[in-house]
């Protein structure tokens, strides 16, 4: 359609746009290329002067060191990885489930207090967990959840952005579908499971990506809500080992590489559905 609209200068401007995007895209990729390159560098290449950007003799030594060195300590790396994976998967699952359940009444029902609740959710888009670490800590310890998986999962389930996006997505589903259901005598319960849930499914991909990225990279919960080393997650481990000098750079890069790959894969997998949800992300005040 662009071709039709601006035919006379389409070729030049399109060419420059692609050239510009490619150039900047390449520049944006440099830190990640560097990360991958470092992760596969043998140790002698880490210390060459002047430093070289690309790896010359790629090796898996860093990954081996990472796993072997950790196995020698009390806590093997696989434990952090397992904790991260478990906590992230459960959190993402329940974020999607609770959001799906909540977005249907919030979008299609006219119960008392609805506007106030949605208003609270809009305001909480401005909420940053970092700001209320202490009272969150107090709540978690008051509930007796310290040092459990629940402490790593439950606070992250209060994820207003996810519910907000699902509710906005639900808004564009015509009300007639539910009215027809009501006329056919379906209970609200049936309509929730048979109509609302399948209709909201396209929005899941977006919530999965946003929730997964947030929880997978979250080192804060682990630092705040757990004490024993075997409850810690991978990003927490990385936040403690970084900055120990070039000697560890290879192994740390390998660990960061392991941390980064899942989020990228999930994004590539779900990308197409994401844009259809984000289209309804607007806040109409």
């Amino acid at each position, binding site marked *: *359609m662009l071709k039709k609209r*601006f035919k006379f200068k389409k070729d030049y*401007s399109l060419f420059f746009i692609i050239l510009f*995007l490619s150039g*900047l895209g390449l520049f*944006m990729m440099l*830190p*990640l290329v*560097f990360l991958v390159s*470092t992760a596969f560098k043998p140790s002698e290449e880490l210390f060459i002067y*002047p430093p070289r950007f690309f790896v010359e003799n790629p090796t898996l030594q860093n990954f081996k060191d990472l796993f072997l060195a950790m196995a020698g300590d009390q806590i093997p790396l696989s434990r952090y990885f397992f904790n991260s994976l478990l906590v992230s998967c459960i959190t993402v699952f329940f974020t999607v489930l*609770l959001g799906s359940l*909540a977005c*249907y*009444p919030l979008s299609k*029902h006219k*119960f*008392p207090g*609805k506007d106030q*609740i949605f208003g609270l959710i809009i305001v909480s888009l*401005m*909420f940053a967990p*970092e*700001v*209320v*670490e*202490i*009272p969150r800590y*107090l*709540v978690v310890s008051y*509930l007796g959840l310290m040092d459990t998986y629940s402490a790593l999962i439950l*606070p992250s*389930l*209060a994820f207003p*952005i996810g*519910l907000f996006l699902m509710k906005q997505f639900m808004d564009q589903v015509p009300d007639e579908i539910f009215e027809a259901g009501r006329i056919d005598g379906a209970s609200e319960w049936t309509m*929730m499971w048979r109509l609302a849930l399948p209709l909201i499914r396209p929005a899941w991909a977006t919530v999965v990506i946003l929730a997964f*990225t947030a929880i*997978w*990279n979250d*080192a804060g919960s682990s630092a705040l809500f757990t004490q024993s080393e075997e409850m810690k997650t991978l*990003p927490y481990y*990385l*936040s403690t080992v*970084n*900055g120990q000098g070039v000697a560890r750079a290879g192994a740390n*890069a390998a660990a*960061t590489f392991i941390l*980064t790959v899942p*989020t990228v894969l999930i*994004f*590539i997998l779900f990308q197409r559905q*994401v*844009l259809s949800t*984000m*289209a309804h*992300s*607007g*806040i109409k*005040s």
Partner: protein
Amino acid sequence: MIAYRFKNLMKEVWRWRVSYLLLSPFFILFALFIIIPTVTSTALSFTYYNILQPPHWVGWQNFKTLLVDDEIFITSLMNTLYFALITGPVGYVLAFLFAWLIHQIPKRFRTFYTTIFYVPSLTSGVAMAVVWLVLFANDSYGYLNSFLIQAGVIDEPVQWLQNVKYIMPVVIIISLWMSLGTGFLAFLAGFETINTELYDAGKVDGIRSRFQELWYITIPAMKPQMLFGAILSVVGSFKVGEISKAVAGFPSPLYAGHTVVLHLQDYAVLRYEMGYAAAISVVLFILIYGIGKLCFAVFSSKGE
């Protein structure tokens, strides 16, 4: 009269009981981990509380100390504002610009470019420190220093992560690299949903270039997504701290990379002065909320 109205309200509530039931699991967690902590924080900010003894009321004392006597807080506030006033708007404009540019290219290439520009925001700021510490390393082994020396721009390695002048700019650059996030996706999606008939109508009305089209048609139609993006970008830029801690250390040289969130952590986690830390968080709330409200005023689509 009041009793009658209350009875009516209860009737309504009972009629929608399934709605409340469906909403309750989310809402309970929302109340436990967002509403209660926010309220508690506000209440604690007027007390002295060290966890061991019960909090006791001190009135406005914490706020007075914070704004009048705590020079390090003022430094951290200035650093945060410096960071937020650059990263917020610049990151926002970049996200919009790149989404717009990607929208201009044929559909089959869009996925590829979207992925390239979005991936940095998927990384963990803290974990990527392994890269930043080597790229910006203070000695000539650092990639940036080595590159600039070879290019003849500088003779001596620059202390990127030690020199007070450069710490914040480095944190800003890293954050901008990661700034094409959720807002960027919202913009991309927003562009795709604008009714193309608007553009045809615009051509009839004399719109000649892509830029006129952007200014007169696209931006007005995108206001709701732009508000969403703006809110996320405000929150994101005011909670800066972890990246600074990861690359410049804690505390950073002469507190040059000290931010409000780091000051908060200092008092909460290291000094156990919870009341004082709560006062810091209240100031941060008010800042974020005030600027967020400003965004609502600017991007409001009411009456259009």
